[in-house]
């Protein structure tokens, strides 16, 4: 039984870690810019597809692929904010909200359709075969260790980035008090654009790691957006550690649900969790801590 639990925990952590990674970008963007980006999960799918195509064609190392994609996504995010989202801020709040919904939903349609037209609609992954380690009855793939390592390293790096760098601190400052940040001389427009860029960059990394473990297709990804929302509400907006814990919890919950109950109910876990949390704490969990 311990072996079974151990195996489930490993899978749950892996799945949850990837979920958390998806949520990180959304969390930063939502925290700073207060924009619901409906295209977020779809961006991950596009990143994963691009990564698997680059891998299939050029046989590049996934780390290199990630570097390339991060750069592309950074630019994409920056331009998206400057040309599509920021101009909406000048409108009244009502129009700004609706405009944001239309723009991000429009983006979602465009990128998934374009990806399907260009790369084909079939799911793709990065098929890496690695050695497996067997401890008793527990089996761990080396690829999984790489992914876990990648998630851990990346989370630490992101954490340090937000804690230690001026830019990272500015992101947190704007999240917690936009006016306070302004008083300290933080240029909000610039930080907004840069945060959207960074958020998209994180999605690229998540996409690469994701496609190492699971296939992605251009029409998928929206359920990941919903999960990412769950995670940031569970973990607190702009709270990285919270998002990581929430993601891991979600992953473990889904894996255990599918083992102990039935796998067709596993996707319900995150949805029910989201609804229950929101209903019990209508202003998010963060309000409880205060």
């Amino acid at each position, binding site marked *: 039984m311990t072996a*079974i639990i151990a*195996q*489930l925990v*490993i*899978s*749950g952590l*892996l*799945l949850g870690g990837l979920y958390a990674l998806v949520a990180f970008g959304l969390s930063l963007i939502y925290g700073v810019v207060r924009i619901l980006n409906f295209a977020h999960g779809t961006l991950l799918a596009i990143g994963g597809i691009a990564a698997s195509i680059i891998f299939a064609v050029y046989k590049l190392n996934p780390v290199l692929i990630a570097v390339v994609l991060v750069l592309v996504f950074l630019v994409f995010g920056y331009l998206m904010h400057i040309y599509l989202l920021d101009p909406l801020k000048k409108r009244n709040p009502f129009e700004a909200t609706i405009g944001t919904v239309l723009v991000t939903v429009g983006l979602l349609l465009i990128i998934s*359709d374009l990806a*399907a037209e260009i790369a*084909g*609609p*079939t*799911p*793709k*992954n990065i*098929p890496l*075969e690695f050695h*497996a380690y*067997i401890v008793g009855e527990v*089996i761990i*793939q080396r690829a*999984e260790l790489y992914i876990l390592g990648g998630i851990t390293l990346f989370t630490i790096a992101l954490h340090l980035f937000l804690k230690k760098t001026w830019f990272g601190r500015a992101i947190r400052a704007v999240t917690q008090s936009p006016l306070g940040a302004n008083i300290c001389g933080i240029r909000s427009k610039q930080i907004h654009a840069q945060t959207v860029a960074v958020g998209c960059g994180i999605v690229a990394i998540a996409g690469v790691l994701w496609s190492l*473990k*699971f*296939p992605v*297709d251009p*029409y*998928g990804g929206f*359920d990941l957006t919903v999960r990412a929302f769950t995670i940031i509400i569970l973990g607190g907006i702009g709270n990285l550690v919270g998002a990581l814990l929430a993601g891991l919890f979600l*992953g473990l919950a*889904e*894996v*255990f*649900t*599918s*083992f*102990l109950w*039935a*796998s*067709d109910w*596993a*996707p319900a876990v995150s949805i029910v969790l989201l609804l229950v949390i929101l209903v019990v704490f209508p202003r998010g969990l963060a309000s409880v801590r205060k």
Partner: protein
Amino acid sequence: MRTTLFAAALGAAALLGAIAPASAQRTDPCAGPITFGTTISATGTNSTLSDRWMKMTEIFEEEFNRMAGGVALSGCGGKKVPIKFVMYDDQSVPATAVSLYEKMATVDRVDLFVGPDWSTHGFPVSQIFEKYKTPSVMSNVATPRVYEQGFKYITGLAFHANTWSQNYFESLKNVNPQPKSVFWIVHDNLIAKTVYEIHKPIAEKQGIKTVGEEIFAPTTRDFTGIILKIRAAKPDIIYISSFDAVSVPLVQQMRQLRVTAMDVHHIMATGSLARQINLEGVTGELYWHEGIKGPYSDIALKVLERAEIKLFDYLWTGGRLDSYFVMIQAIEKVGKLDREAIATALRAPGAKWKRPGGEFEFDAGGLSKIVAFTHQIQNGAPVIIAPAAQATGTIKWPSPTWQ
């Protein structure tokens, strides 16, 4: 107010009248070309199975008219008329498919239908064929319930869910050691579940006991829970009834977690699956395979080549092509373009139909009684292991990569 309303109504009627194309009903049953109406899921969720078929259908029209010279109409003095396709993308949405078939029936006025694919589309669209009394040879609509509605104008080219794995379970009688138990893993999808429900009693009749069954949602990504249950159950056979795309992580994780069995059977062990994961040693079903020559196989192979489609990658392409061939045969049997006669001919009891993979009959409801070829992936390519007549190799038993 009354005058405005009247004026507006007049204007609206004029506008609609202007949009509606004036196309006269065909009166001469010998005039060509004969138009086939169809929709293809070129975008949306089902497009993973069929995204190249639009191009393929265009090429088919061209190659058939060139290579066969058209449809031979014996009732018109043996004159050959070309075929022509009217086709749309149904975007994988059944409601869209319905509106498109309505359009083809009433605006484009196609002569006959070949399509749609998928059981979810087959249900609503089959009523359109009844309504317009226009026969259709659908493809890949395998759920028997579509054909149990008592409709006259539908036929369908697909594996019969009832016989899907018939050859596989037959071949299991001759292997040594004999498998004693099976674990069913089922994609929560109409066709996958039907196949599982039908074969479960067949297996049990053969003395293969069910030691576990699990239905999973299409969005499932982590299968550790299921796999641990499999490992605990220690089945001889793992039978995966699933679409290929959604089962990639399942098979991958089964490999990674060192699942052992005498055989892993996947009802859609396709090339696109094999490209993403190691399928070596897995058994599965094939509708048709490039290596098997039969009627029309020259045209079919040419079309596939030009459309850059490998049957192993796009498992259901065979059904699509066959629906074209069957419709053409039906017209030729009747000898002229007569919808009623064609519908009757298609459903004539005991009639034999040709396809590149061999001959077959329709059952009473109109679903093709096609028995799949069972194959095993050996050295990265499918080897037909049953039925014996078309076999290109023998099964490796127990499956070497699942030990």
